[in-house]
């Protein structure tokens, strides 16, 4: 019991951010028209590419060959997620906006 309380105390800021973010995520996604489900999914996909920051930190402190290789790979994968994700989302959305402007 005490360990659990300590845990919560130690990570209280992170827990706070997590809880707020959950509510935020729910709020932000309410009332999305069906046609935007996929671009939204694609955009969210790109945003979770933020995991790339972790891979940069890992590669940034790597010294041995194994860490360097895996870290290098991890950054590439993260970049694919971020860049690929945003470009795909943009492509999906481009299709919508041409219409709006023409009208």
């Amino acid at each position, binding site marked *: 019991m005490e360990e659990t309380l300590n845990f919560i105390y130690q990570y209280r800021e992170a827990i706070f*951010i*997590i809880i707020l*973010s*959950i509510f935020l*995520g729910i709020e*932000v*996604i309410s*009332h999305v*028209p*069906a*046609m*935007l*489900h*996929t*671009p*939204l*999914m694609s*955009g*969210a*996909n790109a*945003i*979770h*590419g*933020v*995991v790339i*920051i*972790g*891979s*940069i*930190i*890992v*590669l*940034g402190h*790597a010294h041995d060959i194994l*860490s*360097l290789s*895996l*870290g290098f790979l*991890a*950054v*590439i*994968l993260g*970049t*694919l*997620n*971020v*860049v*690929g*994700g945003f*470009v*795909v*989302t943009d*492509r*999906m*959305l481009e*299709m*919508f*906006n*041409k*219409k709006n402007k023409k009208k």
Partner: protein
Amino acid sequence: MNDSILQISYIIASICYIVGLKKLSHPLTAKNGNYIAALGMGLAILTTILFHRTDGHAIGNIPLILLALAIGSFLGTLAAKKVKMTAMPQMVSLFNGMGGACAALISIMEFPRINPDIIAESGMMNGLTLSILLGLVIGSVSFAGSMIAFGKLDGRINDSKISYLKIINIIGIAAIIAMIVFIMFQEEMPSMTIVYILTVLSLLYGISFVMPIGGADMPVVISLLNSFTGVAAACGGFLYNNQAMLTGGILVGSAGTILTILMCKAMNRSLMNVIIGGFGGSAAGSDEGVEKHIKEITLSDAAVLLTYSQKVYIIPGYGLAVAQAQHACHDLEILLEDKGVDVKYAIHPVAGRMPGHMNVLLAEADVPYTKLKEMEEANAEMANTDVVIVIGANDVVNPAAEEDPSSPIYGMPIIKALDAKNIIVIKRSMAKGYAAIDNNLFYHPKNRMLFGDAKNVLQKLIAEIKAM
């Protein structure tokens, strides 16, 4: 100083993700939302490279990092730009998998580096271990599952009806949880072997999780895996006490979950149903053995019927995408409008392979935004519609969803094509749709079949109308 700049940039990045995501949920602001989120991401990456410090050490190996960024950007942009619009869902799945793999790799590398002082104090039972292991498992499951989803959507993997996969899934998740608990109860840092085993187990679970789910449900699965990867990213954020990763990750985790639930609602199926059942038992087939006749219509008759209508609704489906007939479709629409016919499109929320698929397809063909009507609106006008043209759509206009309780699609909201005065169905053959069931709409007296490839048929129809 360094840390202040970094924290400020992470706050800005988090704001960008939140605002970006919000803007992405409205048609007019969506494009900007994407840019804003991307900007925030760029800022976070840049400042991390320049200002991040771990115990006073700055980020090293910068040339290597830049090289990796360059390679990833090049390949990612290439893949995203060159792929056909119909392959968009697969791409989302692919990139999602990349993120999951990244998270898993981070965990594999960070596990041996858990602060020995902390282990000396509390053994392996601490927040760092938990976040590393969760990031590893969730990232691996997401990676493997996303690859399978990619394969299914790309047509490379077929649905498997292996029923014992369900048992394997239950055993798999139990084993994974057991291993995590086991590792956390260790007093000292265990060997990496057990971590590798956990990784393989998670990968296998990811595969068997997605394998039994039907191809038609893939968009829902991808959305779910999307939120998984978000949670994996958040685990990384927890580990590094990194606010940008925490916000970005959890935001996607929760938003992604809501989105998944919304998608399920559009199909009127519960998430449990999708994950566990595929389409459940085969249809009892209330009129098997009853002779069913279809009537066809000639191109010239169809041309006449359409030209002398006042109101026409086009119901597009996956067949339109496959035939790449969206431009021909738009040409037909323009032609009919010139002749005084009011032409609109009825878009079912899950028509095609993903929500919004039809919208994107038709937008590519310059179909005005305002002509695309959502299901409820279109259904309200069906009774007044002279002709409904169903192009390559099947399950979304199947009346069994409303009439036959034993049908696997029963309860799914459909476009009420049956209410229109005349129905023309353009299809290549009498082949079944994704739900693999018969569609009584085709045999209805009001319906006429027009067989052929959508693009071909539409172009010929256009020629007929012009020749009138």
